[in-house]
């Protein structure tokens, strides 16, 4: 876990890095600015943009693990949505008994209860991810067809088990008292919880970027995405790395599930498989295996969904398909294609 290694020879000034690929970065503000005249109403635009960013961050939480797992081991887990749903439902174990902590208007008590719920959800989904990897995925490495079928089967079983454990009905999940309501910025109303979602998502993204760029584990993950065999030839066990990433990705999906559940304020067993559609679109747009692409893709998809949901509500979901088509026409391998051996 050594961090920044500084053995840079000082003799020659290092050449400037090649300019990073910045074009996809501009898509997010471009989309937001394009929507402004169409919506026409500035406060409404602010509200929609914040809502879009919040949703995008939550989708990013759920998608990031999936895209890394795919990049590292060429495994696409169609059952990833199960972790989202299980995460949200697990949180009820804490949130429902601690209702009185949540209903007091005290930020500290609210945060404590919520933090505990998130922690439990992440631990449970992390463990579940470990089991899932062992039982469901390990026997079908390298067989795409079987992977798709098996993980789909795993999703069905997991969803049904949620019904068995938590009963067949929806579970209402009210927001903690101090996160309810909105902040008024000028004329625009911005819901507090959305700001929190943005903050959490940003924090996770920054932490993830730091890990991937500054730590040896992160370097190994990036190297493994590109050429796993060579990582092994250098003496590292890629399977261990993969299990670690899988567990971390599952835990993040669990975190995303709690956030998403609180956002919708109601939990259904199908919430995981429902969110998988935008998640898949996001990782395709971003370039399978790329965390940065996944982040931008998530913001684009969520903004698009919110804007079109306001402008032409009936075709909101179809708009994401159009977005995907447009981006793939521009870059057939996604925004940030991952170099493969």
């Amino acid at each position, binding site marked *: 876990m*050594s961090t920044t*290694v500084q*053995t*840079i*020879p000082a*003799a*020659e000034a*290092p*050449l400037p*890095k*090649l300019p990073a690929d910045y074009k996809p970065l501009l898509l997010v503000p471009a989309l937001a600015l394009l929507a402004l005249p169409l919506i026409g109403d500035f406060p409404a635009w602010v509200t929609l943009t914040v809502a879009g960013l919040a949703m995008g961050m939550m989708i990013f939480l759920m998608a990031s693990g999936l895209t890394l797992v795919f990049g590292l081991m060429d495994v696409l887990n169609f059952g990833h949505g199960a972790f989202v749903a299980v995460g949200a439902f697990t949180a009820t174990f804490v949130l429902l008994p601690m209702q009185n902590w949540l209903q007091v208007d005290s930020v500290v008590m609210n945060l404590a209860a919520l933090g505990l719920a998130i922690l439990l959800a992440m631990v449970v989904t992390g463990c579940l991810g470990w089991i899932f990897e062992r039982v469901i995925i390990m026997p079908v490495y390298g067989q795409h067809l079987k992977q798709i079928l098996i993980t789909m089967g795993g999703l069905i079983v997991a969803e049904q088990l949620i019904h068995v454990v938590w009963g067949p009905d929806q579970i209402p999940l009210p927001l903690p008292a101090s996160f309810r309501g909105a902040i008024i910025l000028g004329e625009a109303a911005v819901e507090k919880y959305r700001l929190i979602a943005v903050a959490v998502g940003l924090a996770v993204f920054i932490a993830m970027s730091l890990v991937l760029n500054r730590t*040896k584990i992160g*370097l*190994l993950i*990036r*190297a493994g*995405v*590109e*050429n796993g*065999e*060579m*990582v*092994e*030839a*250098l*003496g*590292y*066990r*890629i399977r261990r790395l993969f299990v670690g990433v899988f567990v971390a990705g599952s835990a993040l999906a669990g975190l995303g599930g709690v956030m998403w559940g609180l956002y919708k304020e109601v939990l259904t067993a199908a919430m995981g498989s429902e969110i998988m559609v935008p998640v898949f679109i996001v990782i395709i747009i971003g370039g399978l295996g790329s965390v940065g692409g996944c982040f931008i893709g998530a913001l684009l998809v969520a903004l698009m969904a919110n804007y079109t949901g306001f402008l032409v509500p009936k075709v909101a979901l179809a708009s994401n398909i159009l977005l995907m088509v447009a981006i793939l026409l521009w870059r057939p391998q996604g925004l940030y294609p*991952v*170099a493969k*051996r």
Partner: protein
Amino acid sequence: MSEALLRLAGVHTHIGQYHILQGVDLTVPKGGLTVLLGRNGAGKTTTLRTIMGLWHASRGSVSFDGQDITRRATPDISCAGIAYVPENMGIFSDLTVRENLVLAARRGEPERARLDWIFGFFPALKKFWNQAAGTLSGGQKQMLAIARAIVEPRKLLLVDEPTKGLAPAIVQSLINAFRELKSTETTILLVEQNFNFVRSLGDSVAVMDDGRIVYSGPMAELAEDRHLQQRLLGLSLDAHQQRLP
């Protein structure tokens, strides 16, 4: 010099339905540079990959430094002291030159003195230290691949056709690097098709054809005997080119 560092005995390797190695017997003596020659498809790359554990032998045994490594996993084999430079170089193009070397130094950081020694024969790596490896030229990537294999001292270095597709000037700097390496403790097993490149470097030589070793002996013997060259390497592209007027 006489003691064997690596020994393959009757190794058979199958890839899918194809029977590639058909009983390879190969001994690499400790110290010095052993060359593995042979035409395309003779099984040279498969031999290296079998040693590395990237493919497993279906029969026969591979022993390294007194241990049996036939069934060991690739990371274990690497940790036992074998470094590998694959044919496609296996560079992590998304990572910088520095990060590539950091990963190869398993005990933390690359040693400064060792790095300076490497920079001595591969100055380009110093120049592009913080640049993404994907932006390097083919020759520079090859240098990085070799540097990555030697950034920590290893007992055995496997190199798969390093001169493939490189300009003559760069081939010369690789020759210098291998000369330099030969002065260290490291034993080298070098796979080549380019006989001119290895004739002055090699101490001993083995020639493969159709998944078997068909000749092995000191390099001096093969280098002297044009008739033997003709017979063993007559099919190889370089020998063919040599014969052209």
